[in-house]
């Protein structure tokens, strides 16, 4: 039986893992490979590395650390940030990443999703979607969320965008619910359920994890394939072995 996946997300700046509010007050939390191996040992099912310097500075992901991670770890990993072309994707995939994730560049030019899928297959194309509920009650997409001064609210409805990127060739969708992100009160079940209803490829929940019960809720109530979190893992507030034990006790299939 297919397991539900637990995915720690690591922010990378200048080749090191950092934490903090994006673009402000960054604290280096460790060396990339070292942290990747620690999460691997603890039972992470997959890792996402988000290159927070690459995208706003308009430069590519540094191939060097991707290759170092690929050499050392034996679980899948995805690289996000700074991928705006088939060439960028090739660089990162050839360095050893299993998947690439695109967000703002896909909004700038949706055809990019299909171009990368055509070149390397849908299985390695993840589309990240940042979404927030507007005052009229609709969830809509946000762009350039990495930099608060540049973040834009788009007219595009989140659910329409999720359908569109699947038609274009997205093999997986990460839905980052900005309303619950960073608050640690649980994933946005309502929005994720709505997304699930239109998402036929794997769906990854992001934003809001604060305790193990939140993971159980999102798997059970929103039927997502994976749950992503950052701060609760980095701070040590949730240890992956404990989390998996609790999920298993609730009858949720996770990898031992």
């Amino acid at each position, binding site marked *: 039986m297919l397991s539900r*996946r637990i995915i720690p997300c690591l922010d990378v700046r200048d080749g090191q893992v950092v934490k903090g509010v994006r673009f402000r007050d960054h604290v280096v939390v460790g060396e990339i490979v070292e942290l990747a191996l620690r999460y691997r040992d603890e039972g992470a099912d997959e890792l996402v590395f988000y290159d927070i310097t690459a995208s706003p500075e308009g430069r590519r992901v540094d191939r060097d650390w991707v290759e170092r991670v690929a*050499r050392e770890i*034996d679980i899948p990993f995805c690289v996000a940030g700074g991928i705006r072309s088939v060439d960028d994707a090739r660089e990162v995939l050839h360095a*050893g990443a299993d998947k690439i994730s695109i967000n703002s560049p896909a909004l700038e030019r949706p055809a990019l999703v299909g171009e990368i899928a055509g070149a390397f*297959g849908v299985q390695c194309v993840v589309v990240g979607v940042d979404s927030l509920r507007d005052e009229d009650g609709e969830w809509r997409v946000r762009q350039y969320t990495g930099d608060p001064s540049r973040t834009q609210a788009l007219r595009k409805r989140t659910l329409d965008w999720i359908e569109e990127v699947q038609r274009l060739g997205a*093999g*997986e969708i990460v839905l980052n619910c900005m309303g619950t992100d960073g608050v640690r009160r649980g994933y946005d079940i309502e929005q994720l359920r709505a997304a699930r209803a239109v998402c036929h490829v*794997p769906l990854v929940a992001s934003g809001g994890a604060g305790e193990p019960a939140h993971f159980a809720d999102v798997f059970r109530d929103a039927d997502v394939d994976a749950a992503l979190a950052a701060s609760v893992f980095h701070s040590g507030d949730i240890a992956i072995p404990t989390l998996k034990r609790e999920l298993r006790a609730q009858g949720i299939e996770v990898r031992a």
Partner: protein
Amino acid sequence: MRVVLVDAGGTNIGSVRYALQRLGTDAALTADPARIRAASHVILPGVGAAGPGMRRLRDAGLVEVLRGLTQPVLGVCLGMQLLCERSEEDDTECLGVVPAAVRRMPGAPGLRVPHMGWNTLRATASHPLTEGLRERDTAYFVHSYAVPVGDYTLVSSEHGQPFSAAVGAGNFMGMQFHPERSASVGAQLLRNFLSL
């Protein structure tokens, strides 16, 4: 032991190579027919689609070379599918060394395609490739096409319906999952292949 990785442009070549290095084996990347024929073990990796995958093998002049190999050959993911007779993906004629046809995995509510993530392996035949595989062991899959279960199936898995997770036909073997990304289970199965 001289292990080669067939370099036909698939994107997971690096990852497979690193996985072998972690096992202490340095595999050369090559598209040279002579070096491939002279190898003790041949690995055909590959991520992407069947049509372009076969085209790359044809362009590199490797179709007959691979068909004629007598040493242990391992296809990984798309590489395994290319060992089969045909693939529904792009309606592609493949190498035909494993008597199977590759089919699109049917999706359904609650059943996502691509099949992506860690799934349980079940050995269905006794074979040196699956030595040490235990019940409830899992491996990492990511694919939309699959080989049905048949006489050639060594390991099965299930996503809505059973499919071949590993196959074997004589010296030709394949793994649908990614051993290079399947933690200790993947390492064990790669080690098994290298000891054939």
